[in-house]
């Protein structure tokens, strides 16, 4: 069996709040393989986004181990974490988080500012713009895009480097049924290209897309057979 792309072992995550310690994740164990399409299900505030941020190396566990391609991420320097984020991870945020005054193309290419070698990505960027149907808007400031187009922009931005791990937080939360269906098709293509995928959602329509299904119960991640 392949070694997992990412692995969480006994991960806890709590936050200090004025009313005390807020335990969000408790003893989370997860192995994520190359062909996985994991759907994380749960209501708002259950810890989906926290888990995605841990997997995206945007956050660190309070306790527990997070392994990326078999290597513990705890001893990594911030620079090494940034390099992993730049080269290996793609994340789509629920609120898009685009740079509204930058052009659509510049938004997709934003990551190249932080890569050592980015010349080869020009063609990839054009291809993604074409694939996502954004080419006619490539020079427009991103703020003029519709919700569906913004979501596609975010997906294109996440896919620029062909990430080995693709994370999506409520990818269809702001979209109508038609756009949601298009996103699902896109994700299917991404998965076929070899990216391990985790989608956090409370939209049950994603279940048919998933190869594995997880849900949160009192901060604990539990797998349910499909």
């Amino acid at each position, binding site marked *: 069996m392949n070694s997992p792309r990412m692995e969480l072992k006994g991960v806890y995550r709590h936050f200090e709040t004025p009313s005390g310690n807020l335990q969000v994740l408790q003893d989370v164990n997860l192995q994520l393989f190359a062909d996985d399409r994991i759907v994380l299900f749960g209501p708002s505030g259950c810890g989906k986004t926290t888990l995605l*941020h841990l997997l995206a190396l945007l956050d660190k566990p309070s306790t527990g181990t997070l392994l990326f391609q078999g290597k513990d991420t705890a001893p990594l320097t911030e620079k090494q974490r940034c390099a992993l984020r730049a080269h290996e991870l793609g994340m789509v945020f629920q609120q898009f988080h685009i740079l509204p005054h930058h052009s659509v193309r510049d938004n997709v290419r934003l990551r190249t500012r932080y890569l050592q070698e980015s010349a080869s990505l020009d063609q990839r960027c054009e291809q993604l713009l074409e694939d996502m149907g954004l080419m006619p808007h490539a020079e427009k400031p991103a703020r003029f895009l519709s919700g569906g187009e913004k979501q596609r922009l975010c997906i294109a931005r996440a896919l620029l480097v062909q990430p080995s791990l693709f994370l999506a937080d409520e990818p269809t939360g702001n979209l109508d049924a038609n756009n949601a269906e298009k996103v699902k098709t896109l994700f299917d293509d991404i998965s076929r290209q070899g990216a391990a995928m985790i989608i956090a959602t409370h939209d049950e329509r994603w279940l048919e897309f998933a190869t594995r299904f997880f849900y949160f119960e009192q901060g604990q991640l539990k797998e349910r057979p499909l």
Partner: protein
Amino acid sequence: MNPLTDILNGWKARPLPVASLMMLCLMLSLLTGSELWMLEKASSEADTLLQAWPQDASTLLLPAQPNPEKLIELTQRLPAGSWYGLRINASTAWVTGTLPPDFFTGQGNGFSPQDLHAGEMAVYLSAYAYPQQIPGGLFPFENQAFRIYGVGQFPLSVDKVIPLRSQTASIAELQQLKIALPASTVEPLIKEFLQWQNIQLIDHREKQQLAQAGFQKLKRILTGITIAVALLIAVLLQALYQAELRERKTEFALRRALGATPQNIRNQILGEALLGSVLPCLLGYLFFLPLVPLAPLLSAMILAPAWILFCATLPAMQAAKLIPSEALKGE
């Protein structure tokens, strides 16, 4: 993406804060430029004054009708072989007898104001006119030998004449004479003489010291104002940056999520600050280019953006330390 394009696009997104930053930089450059100009003006005024007053010299201002007898008496009371001079307002110079036509013009006498030495007492006699031009005028030092000690531009300024105890000195001989008597010897005599004549003694050394002290005071005041302005601008910039960085928290978090290191974020903010300050500062200082010497202006052109960079450093470091997951959850 080109970092410059990135910064310019970012500016388009935040025209008001960027305009405020640029206005502050322009204000800083205009204020410091004005102060440099004032300092330059004061410095050149002080230089003019100091040049007009001979170094280490006193001037005896005679009344409109000086008493020649008293002057002669004073002369006689000086130690034998010593010399002194008197400065007399040209319009009231008393001239008697006949002096060589080039006596006051200084033609060929070879002396210059630099012949005055530290610690020497010099009192000048000045006259516009040749003795021939005021026939019958009185000269208080009749029968005295005179030495032309230094000559100003005839007839606009004052000639410097030293009366000597010697009766026979010619101009050629006088050129060989060395200044011998220190101010400390002559000064008490002059002061005593002043008591008889109610004549005002103006000591140029005191004036010089006053002028220098005044200039130093002005310099201190202007430096104080510059520091106050710089600090005020620093406070305003801090507030502006803090507000702006709060607004841009999500943008920086997104950049971090896409692989930006804390150094990338810090450099971006400092780059924006530098680019945003250099242009208005240049514009502001260019205004003073014809008024202020280049050296202080160039220093200011470097120091002002450096100060803005310094002010941006703390907010830039704070933004670099931002925890991306918190900022991305925030919205």
